[in-house]
């Protein structure tokens, strides 16, 4: 379910690619400093996008720093820190823990259990610090497990649950009591819901053959695969509409070029790679 919301590097200017890189390194840095080196292993593009998007909506550039990390010991590089990178890192731990536990519960994936164990202490801290988000993730994951277990044929039901999970993650701040911050929180929730539903369905489309072979639950099994592109387009159309409503609240949104590269092109990276692989196999 993770790793779908990435940029398309071929269509980024070198300068935009650098900004994206700084966000990615910022997330990794925040994971390391807040949750330890083990947590760094869970860094992913989806939460990089979360940080990027929140920074744009809240118009917070973040704090620039330079570091040499384990991965790049010889070359100092820029990273973006600050409260948004910290939040994205915390959410990363929350999701990575649930994802690992999910692997263990579904398939008795021992590596999943080991990953979960490694993150458990940090997860407990995050859980206590963000009751709204952690409850939403826990409840929706439990509902998703029940939906999968009973073999629900309607794909909208699980997609909506996963969307709600993502929607709550995108609402970093629901404390503000003025009208604008309420509208921003509601806008972020809508946006996250739409993106989450899209990610859930795209994941199912990509996994279809594998799930057919292993006789596992897949919400798209009753949908002819020649309809997948159109369905995903409609879901992304809903997502960009939610994005446009946020743009109306935040004129001159920072990193809009980068964000729209991801929303219009980057989100298709893994799907297109999968399609190419399938075509190659067919030949």
């Amino acid at each position, binding site marked *: 379910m993770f790793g779908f919301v990435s940029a398309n590097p071929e269509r980024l200017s070198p300068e935009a690619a650098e900004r994206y890189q700084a966000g990615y390194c910022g997330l990794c840095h925040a994971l390391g400093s807040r949750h330890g080196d083990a947590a760094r292993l869970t*860094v992913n593009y989806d939460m990089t996008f979360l940080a990027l998007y929140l920074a744009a909506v809240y118009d917070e550039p973040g704090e620039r720093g330079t570091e040499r990390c384990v*991965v790049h010991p010889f070359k100092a590089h820029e990273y973006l820190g600050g409260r948004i990178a910290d939040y994205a890192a915390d959410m990363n731990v929350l999701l990575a823990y649930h994802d690992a536990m999910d692997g263990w519960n579904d398939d008795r994936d021992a590596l999943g259990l080991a990953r979960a164990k490694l993150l458990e202490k940090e997860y407990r801290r995050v859980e206590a610090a963000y009751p709204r988000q952690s409850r939403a993730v826990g409840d929706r994951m439990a509902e998703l497990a029940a939906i999968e277990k009973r073999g629900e044929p309607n794909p909208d039901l699980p997609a*909506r649950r996963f969307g709600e999970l993502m929607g709550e993650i995108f609402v970093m701040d629901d404390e503000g009591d003025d009208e604008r911050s309420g509208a921003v929180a509601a*806008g972020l929730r809508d946006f996250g819901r739409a993106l989450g539903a*899209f990610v859930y369905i795209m994941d199912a489309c990509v996994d279809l053959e594998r799930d057919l072979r292993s006789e596992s*639950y897949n919400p798209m099994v009753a949908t002819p695969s020649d309809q997948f592109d159109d369905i995903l387009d409609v879901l992304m*159309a809903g997502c960009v509409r939610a994005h446009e409503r946020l743009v109306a609240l935040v004129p001159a949104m920072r990193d809009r070029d980068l964000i729209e*590269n991801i929303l219009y*092109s980057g989100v298709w990276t893994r799907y297109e790679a999968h399609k190419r692989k399938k075509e190659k196999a067919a030949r």
Partner: protein
Amino acid sequence: MTKDPYQVLGVSPSASDDDIAKAYRKLAKTYHPDVNHGSPEAAAKMSEINAAYERIKSGAAAQGSGPYQGQAGYGAQGSYGQAGYGQGGASSSDPFGFGFDPFEFFSGGFAGGRQGASPLGQARSFINAGLFAKADDLLKSMDDRGAEWHCLRAVAQSGMGNAIDALRHAKTAVQMEPDNPEYRGVLNQLQNGGQAYRQRSQGYGMPTVNLGNICLGVILTNLFCTFCRPF
């Protein structure tokens, strides 16, 4: 004519949920069009299997054996219904999140269809009255699933906030009867924004790279620095 859905799946009516799901997935593995290189016989068989499975699942749901089953599970007019995807803040003229208002749409487009006596006509009447979940239940109980059936199902599902299922049925209706203007109209409404999105998306060009999943370099080694950054 009416096929027993349990017979189609080859399970007894007393089979457990688990066994029914297993039987369905076993059949899907054999008959899914993707593993049969588009064989029309396999596709027809798969449609039959899907319909049987759905009927059994909705029958079980009607007994209300779980919190998300039955109408509540489909979010019919409930808290999850009508939300659509990414539409929460939309204007009040778009309560279903599809860029159009089914009430308005169907009072225009659908009133002309035959209503009343036949089951399909009855489903139409439910839809025109805004009773989407009722229309959906009625449709699910039917065996004869032609283009009109799929079209009505699409409208009922969209009224319940189920964008994905709605689109699937609308596309199937148009595939079965490409020249029917009513079905095309429904499909166009449901594809709301999808084509515009695709156009803009194609303006970027589809990505042709394979990204590594994550910064694996942290785990493996610190030697191959250039491979582990996103790009």
